[in-house]
């Protein structure tokens, strides 16, 4: 499934909720069940700068497949990061390079987090693309 299809599926999941509290509960549940990045991988190198709440994203490329693991101390932020991870994790390098992440706008992500942290999510996406583009991610 490519990035566009993954984003469509995420939006469909959100549209099933009628009430804002249910959408929040879903994001919080996503964040609570999201596997944490091991502490030794939460470094200055993996930290996303430009994100007001501490967030990290670890990117590896293995056999041309991009592996992404994002994390944050905030469970709501972690839930949103898990959605970004769902979009990118397992894609090919070409798919990551060419994909456009637009689900924030459709989801009104600003309703869940403030505009500064929305800008932080853009930093996460840029970081993933940059790692793939420069191939500076650790190759396993």
């Amino acid at each position, binding site marked *: 499934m490519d990035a566009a299809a993954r984003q469509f599926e995420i939006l469909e999941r959100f549209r099933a909720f009628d009430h804002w509290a249910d959408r929040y*509960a879903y994001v919080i549940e996503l964040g*609570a069940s999201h596997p944490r990045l091991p502490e030794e991988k939460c470094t200055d190198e993996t930290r996303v700068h430009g994100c007001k709440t*501490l967030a990290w994203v670890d990117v590896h490329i293995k056999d041309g497949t991009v592996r992404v693991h994002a994390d944050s101390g*905030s469970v709501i932020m972690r839930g949103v990061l898990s959605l970004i991870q769902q979009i990118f994790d397992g894609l090919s390098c070409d798919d990551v390079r060419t994909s456009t992440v637009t689900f924030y706008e459709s989801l009104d992500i600003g309703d869940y987090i*403030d505009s500064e942290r929305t800008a932080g999510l853009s930093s996460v996406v840029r970081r993933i693309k940059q790692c793939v583009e420069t191939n500076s991610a650790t190759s396993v």
Partner: protein
Amino acid sequence: MSRESCDTARVMFPIFANRPDAPVYLDSAATTQKPSCVLDSLMRVYEHSNGNVHRCAHRFARECTDSLESARKKVARFIGTASPKEIVFTRGTTESINLLAWALSVDSIRAGEKVLVSALEHHSNMVPWQEACRRTGATLQIIPVNPSTGEIDIEALRSMIDNSVRVISIAHVSNVLGSIAPLREIADIAASLPSCVTAVDGAQAVGHLPVNVAELGVDYYSFSGHKMYGPNGIGVLWGREDALNALPPYQFGGEMIDTVAYDTSTYNSSPFRFEAGTPDYPAAIALGTAVDFLEDLGRESVREHEAEILAYAEDRLRRIEGLQIIGHPASRSGVISFNVDGVHHFDLEIMLDRFGAAVRSGHHCAQPLMGLLGVEGTVRASFGIYSNRADVDALIAALGKSLALLSCARRTA
């Protein structure tokens, strides 16, 4: 006026009637809401008498100049000085402290000397002094704070004192912990030295407590209009007239000049010496109105009203399981910071807003203090004259709902 007036002051703030849908406002430490009289004052300048101030004889200029200088006198009286020449209008506390730190770094602070700031300072009262020390070769030293009470360790300060200390710069009230600094005691310590001045960040104090710079014995005092029910973009640096006139100007041009030739210029005396360019006279005039507002309510009445609301808030917060109040000063003003076990402060800020309470979370521009406290950030509820018990009750109700929704995250934390 009386406590009863303080208890009903809320009606003077149009934003509350205009926004019945909004969460209760518990972020006054970031900025206060504005009473109608301040808003009217601001608009009145633009609607009735707007004219650039000083050095002009036409009626618009005269009326605005008179109003500006009347506001300056009001501000002087507000902080306990007779001389309006000691009131410099700036853009706010940050600019005031930057101006002072820069000016002192030109002639008054030298290599090998020391500047002392406390461990709980806002960045605006830390970074300018770091820069002053970097420029001059002086050393910045940190006065310890008791992390449990949030109070400055006076005995530790005494042990740091020697003749090389040039500046002690302290927040009157901590924007994170609400603790009130013993300024008189600190000023007396500074006065025992041959050449040490005391500078005060009064941003969190002037809207909440009576302030008298003469009684405090400090040398400089800075504060912001927007944190005392005045407009944004205006603030004050107070200093004794002789001390201000000994400082070099910070910016050049406009009202700060006396004479200008192609090759040299002479400068005006305080306060204009530090008011380059066209001042924000509408905001300064409206700041004067904010002073009237607070004085009409009564400074002690304001303090008593807020003390009661703070005590009520602290009592109700303390009963919430897993909630830790950060800082337990003997005297508290304005703010209560807290965290909840297993809950990230940002998550709580978001959910509290959704459930009806507007608070702020994060490092509150005090990253070093957060490190001292061993936290990434805190949630902060901060109160103003319009805050009441119903606001506290709404906060507690919102906390209950927020923590219930976040409970699955707490279980896995």
